[in-house]
């Protein structure tokens, strides 16, 4: 069964939609022994059905493996008990009513293997065997659900913790001026990874606790700069994002070929992109225009000898808007 088949068999609701891929992954990552019930109540093969009834009632169990001299020989379920009650045969031994066609699962199997069995058979519980074939635990669909939920909760908690740690970074580290610098090397012509740096920056900002609107502005401006490096440079370039509590400074540098006419480059609709690149939907001549819309300050230093330097700033505190300091 492929992950896609597994996907179709799940009951999907709004809340699980966003975790669906993760749940699928967990089906493969988690092993049966991580989610099964370890302490197994077993019935001896010779026990009377009346005792099975009594024990089941007292211990709130709806079924258990049946053993003979410690080895697994069958499974007794509530259904078997009802069949026995129906004919009023409570003096019979467990062996008479148990299901002796054994469907088992190995402790080391991924949970998805057990799910396949639950889907393709009508069994409600699976005895779990260790590598020597000995009974090690019991697994129900409920165990799997609980195991997946626990694992998702852990995932969620670790993302929350990361977010918490990241968003307190600036409070926890004392200095006169703290900043976090992210660098991304962009290769010329690498359209396949176009947008990777900008989406990573957007994610980093959200993790740091930035407002979604700010992360979006930053994402758009870095995307345009990133695509410019991919489309227009000779050797690609570097994007450097400096994050401070009060502002985000972005520097984009490349080593050529430089911009011949900067006024023209800033004009909406002007582009030097090749026909091939335009076919991909780039070269609208809106890149720098978009950047200037998204950032509070933008400075572009074109030079035909040394390539282009693009500096952008986004202020978190709007009162601090001022000229970019020369460096």
């Amino acid at each position, binding site marked *: 069964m492929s992950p896609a088949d597994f996907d179709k068999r799940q009951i999907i*609701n709004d809340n699980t939609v966003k975790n669906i891929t993760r749940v699928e992954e967990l089906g493969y990552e988690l092993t049966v022994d991580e989610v099964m019930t370890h302490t197994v109540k077993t019935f001896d093969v010779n026990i009377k059905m009346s005792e099975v009834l009594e024990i089941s009632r007292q211990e709130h169990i709806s079924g258990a493996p049946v053993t003979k001299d410690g080895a697994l020989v069958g499974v007794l379920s509530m259904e078997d008990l009802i069949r026995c009650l129906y004919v009023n045969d409570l003096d019979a031994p467990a062996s008479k009513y148990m299901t002796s066609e054994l469907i088992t699962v190995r402790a080391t199997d991924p949970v998805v293997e057990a799910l396949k069995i639950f889907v393709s058979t009508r069994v409600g519980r699976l005895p779990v065997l260790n590598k020597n074939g000995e009974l090690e635990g019991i697994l129900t669909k409920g165990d799997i659900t609980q195991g997946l939920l626990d694992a998702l909760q852990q995932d969620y908690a670790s993302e929350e913790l990361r977010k918490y740690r990241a968003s307190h970074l600036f409070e926890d580290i004392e200095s006169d001026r703290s900043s976090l610098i992210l660098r991304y090397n962009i290769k010329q012509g690498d359209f396949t990874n176009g*947008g990777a740096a900008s*989406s990573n920056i957007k994610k980093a900002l959200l993790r740091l606790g930035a407002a979604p609107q700010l992360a979006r502005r930053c994402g758009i401006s870095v995307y345009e700069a990133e695509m410019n490096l991919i489309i227009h440079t000779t050797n690609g370039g570097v994007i450097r994002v400096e994050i401070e509590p009060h502002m985000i400074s972005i520097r984009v540098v490349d080593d050529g070929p430089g911009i011949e006419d900067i006024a023209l480059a800033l004009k909406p609709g002007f582009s030097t992109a090749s026909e091939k690149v335009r076919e991909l939907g780039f070269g609208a001549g809106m890149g720098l225009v978009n950047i200037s819309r998204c950032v509070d300050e933008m400075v572009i230093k074109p030079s035909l000898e040394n390539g282009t330097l693009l500096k952008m700033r986004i202020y978190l505190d709007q009162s601090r808007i001022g000229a970019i300091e020369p460096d």
Partner: protein
Amino acid sequence: MNLEDIVQKLDLTLITLSKDLTALTPSNGYASDLLSCVMAGAEENGIWVTLQAHANIVAVAALLGLSAVIITEGAQPDEATIEKANQENITLLTTSQSTFHIVGKLWEMGIRAF
């Protein structure tokens, strides 16, 4: 108005992983094949109609937080693009109809420009 209604009415094909489309409710629409125009003009939670089908449409949709992309004129994204869209939780829909046709239908259904 949710995406499921739109998919049904316009006979669109979902090419990313199946999900509950009734939970996605596009609030506006935008049509262009120039990515920078989309960057400038498309709004969050919107639906974008284009005939571009390469991987960068996913990056654009993800950065803008769009609810879905409708790829027109029978253009088909490659496997890598679909995979990337699944990772970024972007919904990709395809149709053999033209952009003009799809936009017209969306307008009829009440989807407006931002």
